[in-house]
């Protein structure tokens, strides 16, 4: 069951400061309403993964790792590989995270990142088939949150994309009953590069890339995931209140530019 979340007690005064600043077009960390925090992207940190990337979004830190395994296709898509996106909100990252099965926040995070990749057709699913209906590559995208200072969706979405771009997989084929290495490596075949851009509504103002302090006072959250053509491939509204239709429209338009900027950062970092 999903229940109204119990937010950590934030000092009322601090809360008011955050809101008042936003109302004046300012922010507590001195950014403008439409600015991201500093973004750092590092790829290839996890040598045992088929791809990996760490994103620092301000003080938020997210690590994504790709593992490619061998498995069977789903019965209704015998000519496609399998993509699994999983997010772990490990208790190392925040006093509000608990050990145990994925919380609804972790599930929402993984599903929003998953939709971005899947719906933009970023990963060429057909190329993952080794033997139709029988043997396919299973691509695991595991998102590991290491420090939670807000806007995990954008950090995770960037880390996942950078890790995919960073990927290196042995060339394989099926011989008889076995999967064997053909020799050589290739990148996972990517056709698109989706980037999530998240907005928060604080008081009556729309800001981009909310920090944790801002998330704790926001009315609602809207993520718009934009593909390489500037089209929308996923959206997700969250939070206890709503947006006016015009706020939605404004956010969607703003997302296109922000996504392009962040995509450029990812590509630069991932290709080294």
């Amino acid at each position, binding site marked *: 069951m999903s229940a*109204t979340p*119990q937010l950590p007690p934030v000092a009322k005064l601090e809360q008011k400061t955050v809101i008042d600043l936003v109302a004046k077009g300012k922010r507590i960390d001195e950014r403008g309403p439409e600015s991201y925090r500093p973004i750092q992207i590092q790829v290839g940190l996890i040598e045992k993964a088929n791809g990996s990337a760490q994103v620092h979004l301000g003080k938020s830190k997210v690590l994504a790792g790709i593992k490619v395994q061998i498995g069977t296709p789903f019965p209704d898509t015998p000519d496609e590989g399998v993509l699994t996106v999983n997010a772990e909100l490990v208790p190392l990252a925040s006093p509000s995270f608990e050990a145990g099965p994925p919380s609804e926040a972790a599930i929402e995070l993984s599903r929003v990142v998953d*939709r971005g990749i899947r719906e933009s057709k970023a990963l060429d699913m057909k190329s993952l088939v080794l033997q139709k209906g029988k043997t396919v590559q299973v691509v695991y995208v595991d998102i590991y949150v290491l420090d939670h200072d807000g806007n995990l969706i954008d950090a995770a979405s960037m880390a996942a994309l950078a890790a995919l771009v960073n990927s290196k997989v042995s060339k394989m084929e099926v011989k008889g009953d076995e999967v064997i290495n053909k020799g050589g490596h290739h990148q996972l075949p990517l056709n698109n590069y989706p980037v999530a851009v998240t907005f928060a509504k604080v008081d009556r103002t729309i800001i981009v890339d909310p920090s944790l302090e801002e998330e704790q006072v926001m009315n609602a959250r809207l993520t718009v995931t934009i593909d390489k053509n500037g*089209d929308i*491939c996923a*959206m997700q509204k*969250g939070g*206890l209140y709503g947006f006016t*239709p015009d706020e939605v429209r404004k956010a969607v338009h703003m997302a*296109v530019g922000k996504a392009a900027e962040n995509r450029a950062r990812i590509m630069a970092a991932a290709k080294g």
Partner: protein
Amino acid sequence: MNKLPEPKQPEKLIDDKGLRIDGRRLDELRPIKLEVGLLDKADGSAYIEQGKNKILVAVYGPREAHPKHIAMPERAVIRCRYHMAPFSVDERKNPAPSRREMELSKVIRESLEPVVLTDLYPRTTIDLFIEVLQSDGGSRCAGITAASLALADAGIPMKEMVAACAVGKIEGKLALDLSDAEDKYGEADIPVALVPNAGLVTLLQMDGHLTLSEFEQGFTMALEACKTLNAMQREVLKKKYATIKEAAEEREEAEVVA
């Protein structure tokens, strides 16, 4: 080999006359049936049929929070469970909650939170149980529409009712209220919930592919459909209270006669 032979993909989702596989126009809602107050044990209940969707919603509360530590001192906690019956879909669904059901429980709860006057009932819970008996695309939206009615039926004070509807893209065209097959073989789906008088969008998701102008057009279609659905919701409640009033008047008359 653990699957039944699949139903075939329809050859076309839109025919030459611009009609959809179930005969609808692109901007047409499926037939909708709304009922309230069907369940005996629940504090409030509602039922919706929208196309082949059959969804039952029960509300319990405001009631004492259990376990106690989930209570909030200044407001009621809203809890929501969207759950599908094992026989509600083509392939039997395991009754344990899936990740999808957990996500939908969250976004449905968030779509309703803004209208419920939770501060009237501190330390309690208001529990919403949405059981999808048959699913046919758009069940989260139909669930929200019915849940608002169930809350009203339970007498939970609300600012107004929330209505929800999806719009999608099939064969390159925007189409209202996608059915299961349209969702499966279509190109995009945007579920939207609207608080009509406040003009607040409280559910908004999307998956697929839409240009900005397609989104703009589709979003507007969805908002209009939410208003239509909201009118239906109000009609149902009006009828209910009329019935109650009639019954009361008859009782009074009977008493006068007696």
